[in-house]
């Protein structure tokens, strides 16, 4: 029975991993920007949720109405005014990647610094839906269940958007080949900016959902950028449902490995799996070869 509970919790944890990575995959997959300041918007979402419940005494879910638009706007501006000049002057994707990494790394310090000045470095946390609920005889935390279903809902919505709308088709075209997409009349710059901004908004949403069951501070962003990056690379760039699946795989393997072998090995198991996938399928689990 405990084994089943461990499996369930691994699934929930994996959903969280997928959730964190969805926005980054949108930014990296469509807009082709590897955004190292991604986690800062996660952090911003977590703080907005914290202030919403602790200071203003509202349901932290309502904070999504504040943090997501703000993150969307800031990311849109970042793309338009910081990334576009880089995209224009870069002769190829490799040069662009290097420039982008440097600039977004700088942005990461700017955002973290601003957060430290305004909100100090204190560890924060709040209680929201932190009750156990029985599920098939096991006990799971309600706030983790919420984050899991949040992840599934966002992934499903993204999937529908990409698969069945004109806008989504354009995004997929850009993912596959931006030059060809522009030749057939897709406004690459406009759509990339929207995808990048949307990725930022998803970062804020995931920060809100995850903040219900973790403690966090102004400096937590980079940790989640790294986690997201691992999932994105495992899944394959630009794969939405694959991202969720890779996250789930990571969570379940981590939990079961930790329980069956030794909890001290969870991080080693994570990275072992990551390396294995890099070796066997360097383009990601869910990309067609």
């Amino acid at each position, binding site marked *: 029975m405990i084994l089943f509970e461990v499996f369930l919790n691994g699934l929930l944890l994996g959903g969280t991993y997928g959730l964190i990575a969805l926005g980054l995959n949108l930014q990296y997959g469509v807009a082709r920007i590897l955004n190292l300041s991604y986690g800062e918007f996660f952090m911003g979402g977590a703080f907005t949720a914290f202030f919403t419940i602790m200071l203003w005494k509202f349901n932290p879910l309502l904070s999504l109405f504040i943090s997501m638009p703000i993150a969307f706007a800031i990311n849109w501006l970042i793309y338009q005014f910081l990334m576009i000049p880089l995209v224009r002057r870069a002769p190829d994707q490799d040069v662009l990647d290097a420039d982008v990494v440097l600039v977004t790394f700088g942005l990461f310090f700017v955002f973290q610094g601003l957060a430290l000045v305004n909100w100090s470095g204190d560890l924060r946390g709040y209680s929201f839906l932190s009750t*156990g609920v029985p599920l098939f005889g096991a006990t799971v*935390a309600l706030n983790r269940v919420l984050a899991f279903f949040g992840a599934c809902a966002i992934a499903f919505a993204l999937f529908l958007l990409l698969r069945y709308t004109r806008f989504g088709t354009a995004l997929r075209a850009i993912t596959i080949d931006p030059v060809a997409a522009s030749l057939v009349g897709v406004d690459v710059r406009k759509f990339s900016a929207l995808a990048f901004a949307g990725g930022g908004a998803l970062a804020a949403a995931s920060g809100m959902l995850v903040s219900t069951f973790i*403690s966090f501070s102004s400096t937590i962003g980079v940790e989640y950028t790294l986690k997201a990056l691992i999932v994105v690379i495992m899944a394959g760039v630009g794969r939405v449902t694959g991202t969720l699946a890779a996250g789930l795989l990571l969570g379940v393997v981590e939990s079961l490995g930790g329980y069956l072998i030794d909890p*001290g090995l969870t991080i080693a198991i994570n990275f072992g799996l990551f390396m294995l996938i890099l070796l066997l399928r360097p383009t990601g689990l869910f990309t067609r070869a």
Partner: protein
Amino acid sequence: MDRRTFVKGSAALVGAATLPTVHAQAQAAPTKLRFGYAITLSGPLAPGADSTTVSNYKLWNKVVNDAGGIMLKKFNKKVPVEMVAYDDQGKPDELLKLVERLIQQDKVDMVLSPYATHMNLAAAPIVNKAEYPVIMTTATTNKTYDLGPRWPYAFWNISQPIESTEPLAKALAELKKQGKIKGRCATVHPAIEYGVEMNKAFLDEAKKAGLEVVTTKTYPFGSSDLQPVIREVMATNPDAFLAFSYPPDTFMLTEQAQIVGFNPQLMYVAIGGVFPSYKGKFGNKVNGILAYGGADPAAPGMAEYAKAHKALLNRDYEAGGVQVYAALQFTQQAIEQVGEIDRKKIRGVMGGSTFKTIWGDMRFVKQLNANPWSVSQWQNGELVAIAPTNKPGAKPLQFPKPAWS
């Protein structure tokens, strides 16, 4: 080179003790005293450094300057304090460079402690070599027990592993004697030095006290899910659950123990259990939980401290940081007793005198704080100190911990 640096440099070279009268005439009172520190202002350790240490440096600096400064009786003058701060980015090698710089280039009058055990340990030999007396405020490690004779200029302020875990074992043994518990303990800790040493110290003390440790579980620092660990502990049905944890896992263990309905009669969490945000998150569910360190909120001076802290930093004080403020009060009184910046004499006073601070009467024996607060407990929504039990202000242990409601 300005006049003051020249005088100070020559004083250091010749040795103030050899020609006291000549120098007394040559020296004018300094216009300010410069206190320098290198500490982690960025990176994963920055939040802890800010909340425990830096905030108290800033607060003390303001309080002491509002009162006119530090009294140097040699010049019969109060001299204000100026802080010189650097970011060591959490890297020991960076810290060493910066501490050297504070001493050699900036020629600060006093050096203050960096943050975290390994950083305190890294800085100690440097300040010792330069003969700068420093109270290291955030080091808990068995190593401090034999470092006293080796580094006479380094002082260690907080409760070390043995002093931190012995009161726990004793309290549990007493409860066992009274027949209230069977004496079954379960411990967990992250795989970092602090957790390992605290756990080892507790296992030794538990053995001496005749307690049974039914399980010990290790987990990696930064785990995202500790529910399986708690499940395994629960399966052994212990009376006491002791987590020698760090802030993120302290919070996570507490939350997940509630989720699975794990209700040990006694629960201990180490670092982070005394944070105001811990109470902020869990509300009155913190009642009965024991934690590492702490302070006596009713001690003389604490009310003013709490008020000044709130006014300057716009947040409640952290009990784990009270000792940092106390270390500065102690240092200030040692300087005032000497009456000038003569670090050899200041070291002498610090090594043998007792001074009143907001952390109680402070005294160092073999450079270790003789009576630091080691264990505290949340009682009726307030954090109180409960060990050492013979220290004035210690409250009795409340047992058992109420079940999560």
